[in-house]
């Protein structure tokens, strides 16, 4: 398929999503769709947002292609990268039509998801326990604070030595970063809970175990989900770093490999893909959070 047709289709998809969201908003404010659309398109914040995008692309094109500034002139321009990405017959072997492209995406997504899920399953209970039990806090917090500042990449050699093979090692360093973010945000969430809620629950007959499930967990929920969003982002950045050092597939590997092979447009394709996937994963975490915290949604926006 012609890349221009794909580009057109992509553009239409973006417009359709935008239009659908405006329709939802129009229903919320009880005004007509056309009215809402006009309001958005002429709003200052929308124009500024679009302006930001346009400025970014224009500066890129100017520095790289038009003025060809020293050092910048080796880089590919935005248009060139876009066409390579959408080309059925890419010059460097990576585009949305090639199987390799998806192999890299699947590897990275699999690693990031595994690490994120493990970090959530272990980090949330860890944070809750630290907030709930003074004893456990004293026992674990100094240790956590000592280990946490060690940058994830410093763990790579040890991880490779301890764990069987590169694959678990990359997942491990990714997990580690996400784990600390999740655990500490959960702890912060528990500490943010107003003492009155604990007192009220105890007055009403709750024992320590019920406090954990009825006050600590729901009370920390907003912070937990903020933490999960950050942990998702942190997982991606340490994953890519790990993949650059010790992996055979994945977007980090792809970016580094393309650098070695002087296939510069592929670097940009890899980076842009990371941007899109990262955005989608954060949005997914956010929407799960919204579902779980209906009370907060309604508090903020009304029923």
């Amino acid at each position: 398929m012609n890349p221009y047709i794909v580009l057109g289709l992509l553009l239409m998809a973006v417009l359709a999503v935008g239009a659908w969201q405006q329709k939802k908003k129009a229903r919320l404010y009880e005004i007509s769709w056309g009215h809402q659309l006009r309001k958005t398109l002429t709003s200052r914040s929308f124009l500024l947002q679009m302006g930001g995008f346009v400025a970014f692309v224009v500066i890129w094109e100017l520095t790289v292609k038009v003025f060809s500034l020293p050092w910048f002139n080796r880089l590919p321009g935005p248009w060139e990268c876009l066409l390579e990405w959408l080309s059925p017959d890419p010059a460097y072997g990576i585009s949305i039509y090639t199987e390799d492209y998806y192999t890299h995406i699947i590897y990275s997504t699999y690693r990031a998801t595994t690490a994120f899920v493990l970090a959530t399953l272990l980090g949330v209970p860890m944070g809750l326990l630290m907030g709930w039990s003074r004893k456990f806090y004293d026992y674990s917090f100094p240790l956590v604070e000592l280990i946490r500042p060690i940058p994830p990449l410093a763990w790579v050699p040890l991880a490779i030595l301890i764990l069987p093979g590169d694959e678990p090692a990359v997942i491990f360093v990714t997990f580690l970063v996400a784990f600390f973010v999740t655990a500490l945000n959960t702890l912060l969430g528990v500490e943010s809970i107003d003492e009155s809620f604990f007192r009220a629950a105890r007055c009403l007959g709750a024992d320590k175990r019920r406090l954990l499930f009825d006050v600590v967990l729901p009370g920390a929920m907003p912070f937990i989900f903020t933490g999960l969003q950050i942990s998702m982002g942190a997982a991606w950045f340490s994953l890519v770093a790990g993949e650059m050092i010790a992996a055979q597939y994945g977007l980090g590997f792809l970016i580094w490999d393309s650098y070695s092979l002087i296939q510069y447009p592929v670097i940009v394709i890899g980076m842009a893909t990371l941007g899109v996937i990262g955005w989608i994963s954060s949005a997914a975490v956010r929407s799960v959070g919204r579902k779980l915290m209906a009370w907060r949604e309604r508090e903020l926006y009304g029923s």
Partner: protein
Amino acid sequence: MNTAEATTPPPVCRAGEGAMSIRKVGKIYDPEGVHVVALNDCSLEIAAGEFVAIVGPSGCGKSTLLNTIAGFDGLTSGEILLDGEPLATVDKDPRPGPDRVVVFQHGALFPWKTVLQNVTYGPVVQGAMSEEDANKRAQEMLSRVGLNDIETAYPGQLSSGMQRRVEIIRALINNPKVLLLDEPFRAMDTVTKSASHQYLLELYDATGKTIFFITHDLEEAIFLADKVLVMTTRPGYIKKTLQVNLPRPRQYSMLASEEFLAMKAQLVEAVHEEAVKAFEAGEREMA
């Protein structure tokens, strides 16, 4: 020196539970360090079904007294009896319970639970009622105070007046012996406040629970209570006891009666003295 026992019986005397006897209670925070004496030899008697209001300058230990009764805080001397049984002593670990439920200054409805889940929380968590029975009972109680359409709402969607009303129902569903109210109407505007007084009085007249009410609003104290106690500045004890002999149900017209104003004048004087002392003590601490 500082005990002011009630000599006359309260105007509304109800047989039943909830008589409280607070005997020479003392509370010292951080005895080895800063040594803050919050309560010293604080004694008072509360009859079953009596509505008692405690007033005093801020920081005088009103809330400390409430916390020791509620079981959030231990005491360092004296004892508190509830219906003749020791509730809090020096040796006993403080322990809150559904026989004396607190309604908090800033409200403590769980924002993550609906109104109905909030109200049924006590009976369900204690295993006192099945969830079904608790729901039925809660609906009954809510509709009696005109709150039947908000069961599925979250507290954040309600006005502050409604929130506080739900919180009082959440306390009453446990059939407590004593209701402990810690400046529950403090942050309200005048209109909401007077409406809140009205429904609290209605609930009090209907249930006959003993009420321990902390406030710094003197008019509120006289208008609601059978007995108003003035607390001294730290270390806190009961300095003055004022019997309020206004008939129940209370009417707003009473607020302008001569009797009411005379009582208010007495309280203003007593509290003012303490406020000045507290202010001077504060000055000394600053210097």
